[in-house]
């Protein structure tokens, strides 16, 4: 065990820090869509031009040929510098790396990484959330094409994306995960309709997407026919990993802000506030060490598997405790809507739902990690 950077990692970190000092946007991140979306895309483009995107991807596909540790250093340093997070949807690109044909990789990956083309993930449906394998959107073969009909929900960036990776049923209705195929669908294809979904905090992060005889060529299939479940599993495993997402640095900044506010208001000596801050800090330290352990496993070539469900539960608990503590410390002022703490708090309630609910994670832990039979 040695938790320090290697000399190479330290050099990488130093270069990154220097670049960030010159490039982090000075204007604050807009609070609402679509302004925030454009801000994040502009930042992604700048990161790409600086060579800081897809660090752990192979060079031949536009990556930097580095490892998961460098990805983690990037996320740490972005948080430290107060920069917007790197686009958290790079896990979708993993599906193309693993399952795409050479033609698909050449066509889609450059635009994906440079943020010239924005993607969304058409997985969840009104009747298929946690139980994704029950999805009802269909794709029916018609000559050289597939015709897609149905509805997607909770589609992040759905209103803004140029492409959607759609899971559709190509088998019988009873085929569940054995009869699902993944398709690349340009969002300007005739028959596709998108409506923003307003969240409890007023935000428009998600969309409802309707498919009415949407026709795509069979060559838009990602992976093989009826093998879409594999694509899904590979994507979700990355989505659940805390180390990939780099939330930790963001949480640390929020806690420091909170401590500053508590001091300004003269409530930082209150022993219950001190203890509450200590409790959040404890969660952050545990999450940091736990993520390092996972990252180290991954860097040593151990496969990403069901263990990420543990990480997801821990991350969820940390985020929700942090924002709940924020409201406790801010007191009655928080509910009067000044500042954006209440908004962040509302968003934190989604943490135990997106990427697989807290209950689904516990199903995975008890079934796949503990081996308990149902």
């Amino acid at each position: 065990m040695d938790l320090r950077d290697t000399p190479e990692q330290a050099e990488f970190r130093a270069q990154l820090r220097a670049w960030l000092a010159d490039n982090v946007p000075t204007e604050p991140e807009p609070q609402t869509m679509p302004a925030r979306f454009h801000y994040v895309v502009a930042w992604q483009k700048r990161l790409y031009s600086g060579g800081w995107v897809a660090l752990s991807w192979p060079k031949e596909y536009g990556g930097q040929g580095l490892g998961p540790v460098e990805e983690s250093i990037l996320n740490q340093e972005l948080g430290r510098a107060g920069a917007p997070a790197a686009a958290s949807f790079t896990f979708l690109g993993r599906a193309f790396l693993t399952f795409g044909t050479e033609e698909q990789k050449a066509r889609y990956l450059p635009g994906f990484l440079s943020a010239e083309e924005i993607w969304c993930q058409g997985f969840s449906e009104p009747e298929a959330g946690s139980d994704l394998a029950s999805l009802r959107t269909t794709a029916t073969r018609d000559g050289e094409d597939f015709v897609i009909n149905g509805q997607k929900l909770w589609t992040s960036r759905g209103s803004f994306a140029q492409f959607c990776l759609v899971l559709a049923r190509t088998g019988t209705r009873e085929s569940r995960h054995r009869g699902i195929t993944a398709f690349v669908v340009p969002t300007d294809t005739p028959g596709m309709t998108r409506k923003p979904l307003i969240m409890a905090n007023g935000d428009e992060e998600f969309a409802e997407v309707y498919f009415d005889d949407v026709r795509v060529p069979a060559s838009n299939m990602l992976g093989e026919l009826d093998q879409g479940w594999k694509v899904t599993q590979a994507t979700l495993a990355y989505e659940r990993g805390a180390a990939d997402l780099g939330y930790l640095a963001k949480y640390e900044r929020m806690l420091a802000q909170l401590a500053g506010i508590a001091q300004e208001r003269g409530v930082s000596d209150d022993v219950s506030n001190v203890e509450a801050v200590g409790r959040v800090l404890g969660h952050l330290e545990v999450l940091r060490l736990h993520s390092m352990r996972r990252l180290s496993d991954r860097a040593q070539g151990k496969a990403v598997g069901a263990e990420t469900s543990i990480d997801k539960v821990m991350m969820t608990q940390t985020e929700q405790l942090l924002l709940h503590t924020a409201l406790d410390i801010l007191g009655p002022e928080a509910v009067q809507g000044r500042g954006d703490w209440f908004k962040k708090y509302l968003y934190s309630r989604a943490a135990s739902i997106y990427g697989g609910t807290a209950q689904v994670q516990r199903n995975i832990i008890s079934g796949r990690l503990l081996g308990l039979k149902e």
Partner: protein
Amino acid sequence: MDFSLSEEQELLAASTRSLAADLFGESVARQVLDGDRARADKGWSNLQEAGLASLLVAEEHGGGGGSLLDACVVTTELYSALAPVPYLTSAVAVPLLAAGSGEQGTPVLTALAEGATYGLFVGADLSWPATGPDAVCLDWAPGRDGLAVGPDTLELGPAEAGPGVDPLHPLGRGTGAGSVSWPAAGLPEASSRALAGVRVAAAAALTGCLAGAAQLAWDYIATREQYGKPIAAFQAVRHLAADLLVDLETCRSVSLGAAWQVENEPIEDAARVAAVAKSWCGEAAVRSIETSIQLLGGIGVTWESTAHLYLRTAHQLAASFGDTRSLLRRVGADFISARGGHSDGSS
């Protein structure tokens, strides 16, 4: 960045687990409950002969020259096996504190390498330092002296049986000795680092208690049948079982990572992460052992079940060397005074 245990450490964990299974386990714990310490003491002699009890003593004093991380790996395995031995005190806390107290500690280190066993005096609140006549001796046994260590004091003293909730790790009452002086502030770094090391080792012990109790519960729910099937088939039960693994894995992460940090990073970071590890593992172990008892059902609350032994040990550990809430307040206060002045969080 490398979080993994070395091959030697993996081997140390496996051999300790196997040794502890041979030497200890439920039947030895039961004998101790009935007042018969013969096999427990024999097991302790075996651990000494295997070199595990002097692992943390430097080679120049005749010990194994192991790291805190090595000792934590051993500690977790012994507490998971309900070993009624003074490992945390005599094999971890005493060598760390004696080495941290300078030359005066040398005779103690040499004696440890030659097979001596010590209890450890702490204050009446089970925290340290052990000042005053009401000091408590951790891992007391009849005829065993306790050690009181300060930055520039080190003395041995007798103790008599005292009240405690954990029969596997008895508490003694100081009888006059065990009073040392500690500065109110400005503790020497060597002492601070030793204290941090003890806290992390306690976190590793708590992780072991949690691991042992969780395994009892997981085994039980997979075989106990109600309504015609194992109760592990019920989702309400499965989710509690899953929570145990979340606690166990995070305890492992923080106790192992903190063990490395305490030996290798600046003292402020070492002190903070040690306090976090101790408070996290103290809270998680008690919570998860309580959950394990719930999963064990009626059996879990009987004297016959070993679950209460884990719970007793965990509570005593959680209360020792700084309890959860006092440690959280300490790290919270430090964070607020260091960071709170900069509400942009850039420091």
